[in-house]
């Protein structure tokens, strides 16, 4: 589908209209800013509800808080995860690779909600345990993907770079990492998407995110709140996933071209 849309013979406007990303993004903006305008709709759908619209916080501030939590934790995950992946694929760190692989494989069988819940006894309530739990859990897919990406770089490419006189660092930065980039981006995508979902649950441990209207709605039997939070956080996740898909596409094309 996307390849047809991207072919140069089609008018630019038409291919733009076929692209889901701008539409999903517009829907997200409409939901975040236009939810108050839908109050009569929710009042109609849930006639028994005295408060059919979540108004304790603006959806805009909740979205920003959600994105901040995911952005900071994912940045930590990416920095440490990529560094760990590079370390265990260098001669100096190769000995640690089985250990890192064991941690990554076992850690990913742990449910994200379990990691979130055990962070609380250790660090207390609020955004700090959520941030650390998200960063720790997000590390695993990034590390896994970095190792897989660097391992998939053909030996011939490294040999050629060595022949051209690249040192270790030059080879890593100008040959290995660019060639591994699509796989690494895929790992970051998985990590960020998991974190968006876990950040929503983090509202149960006192972090202010888009999960808050859902949690308050569930505990107060207010389905309208639940629906409002769920629609926005679901759309947000889809938009970010589509954006990552686009980024991965760009990088693959750039790599080939």
């Amino acid at each position: 589908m996307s390849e047809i849309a991207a072919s140069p013979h089609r008018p630019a406007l038409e291919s733009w209209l076929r692209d889901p990303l701008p539409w999903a993004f517009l829907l997200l903006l409409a939901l975040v800013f236009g939810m108050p305008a839908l109050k009569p709709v929710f009042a109609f759908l849930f006639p028994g509800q005295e408060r059919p619209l979540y108004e304790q916080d603006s959806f805009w501030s909740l979205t920003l808080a959600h994105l901040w939590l995911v952005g900071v934790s994912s940045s930590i995950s990416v920095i440490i995860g990529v560094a760990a992946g590079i370390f265990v694929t260098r001669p100096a760190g190769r000995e640690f690779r089985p250990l890192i692989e064991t941690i990554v494989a076992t850690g990913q069988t742990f449910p994200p909600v379990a990691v979130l819940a055990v962070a609380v006894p250790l660090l207390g309530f609020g955004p700090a345990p959520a941030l650390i739990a998200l960063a720790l859990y997000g590390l695993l897919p990034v590390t896994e993907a970095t190792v897989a990406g660097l391992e998939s770089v053909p030996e011939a490419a490294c040999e050629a770079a060595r022949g051209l006189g690249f040192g270790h660092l030059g080879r890593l930065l100008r040959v290995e990492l660019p060639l591994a980039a699509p796989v690494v981006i895929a790992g970051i995508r998985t990590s960020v998407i998991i974190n968006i979902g876990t950040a929503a649950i983090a509202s149960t441990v006192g972090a202010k995110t888009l999960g808050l209207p859902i949690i308050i709605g569930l505990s107060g039997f207010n389905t309208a709140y639940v629906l409002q939070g769920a629609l926005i956080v679901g759309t947000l996740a889809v938009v970010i996933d589509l954006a990552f898909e686009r980024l991965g596409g760009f990088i693959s094309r750039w790599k080939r071209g």
Partner: protein
Amino acid sequence: MQPLLASDTDVAPERGYLRNRVLLVLVLIALAGGFGLSFLTHAPNRLISGRPVAWSAILADGRFLCLLPGLALLIGPFLRQIRTNHILIALIGAAFAALLFWLAGDAASRLADPASTSARTSFGGAFWVIEAITALAIADALQRAGFGPATRIGISLILVVPIALVLVSGSADQLSIMKEYATRRDVFGAAVVTHIQIVAMTLVPTLLIGVPLGILAFRRPSLRGPLFAVLNIIQTIPSIALFGLLIAPLAGLVATFPVLSQFGISGIGVAPAVIALTLYSLLPIVRNTSAGLEQVPGAVIDAASGMGLTPSQIFRSVEIPLALPVFLAGLRVTIVQAVGLTAVAALIGAGGLGAIIFQGLGSSALDLVLLGVVPLIALAVIVDASLKLVISILKGRAA
């Protein structure tokens, strides 16, 4: 023995006296955790946050002997990298893990005040750090010993036995998490059963829909793009949002057709949980069913049809067996994911271990949180390990 030696020199270059840098790093982290964090905390009741219990109190009256296996692990990095030593390290590690657990339970019993049952002794950071590091040291040793994945899983199961013995013997009963268990024995048992039931109930529709969809995707490659795009979008939606989105439509459905409520369907509870979990489970099952069939070599199918097998015979006796390991890998991802997501489903009233976790979080009863989290992780790890075991046995047979 030959390949074992080769892989040993490949993985662990032996320089000077230090022969296992991985174990050295692990041991150093454990030491830092042991000195920097508290092993146990004690509080007069559950509402007050605990004070650290001194090591001197925990190790009183010769109990410091329990730390001897830990000293043996300290020597580990300098031992010759031969199979016997690796096995020895794994055994000592298992003994150490169990002894630490016993020490914690023993200290809790001595701290317990017979006059008051509200005193709480909980695990501290050092306990978790040292236990986790010991588990990693055992995993590292088993890997270095050159055992295959199936053997490693088997040995790991045996190595858990000492910890289970401490648990069964009642030595740990005065620990806070076990006290939480004692006061909720029935609720806990019911939660475990409900949790497993929800996962099992999810597998039925998942397999009934997912396997045919996967076969269809394999037969019609043009379907794959749109089908996987839709399943991927579902997978993207946060679990709590999908559970939430199902409440209103299901409640509306029951309001329109009240007869549905007789089948236990309602906006909250098990019904939306199973529907949402099935939607999440479809992607790994469909993808791996299709991928498993795709990776069957064309030459094998040609050979089978050359032998006169009909297409349906080929499907049953060639394609299905060869696709099975990949399919089972998808099933493993599905069940592990479902075990975790079922915990979130407690938020919409589905019950299970998540109910205990969220009840604990809600009342700041941290050992109650652990009472939910520890079996939840154990369940996920057991499912993961047993399916990995089956897959590696199947692959071994095929090879």
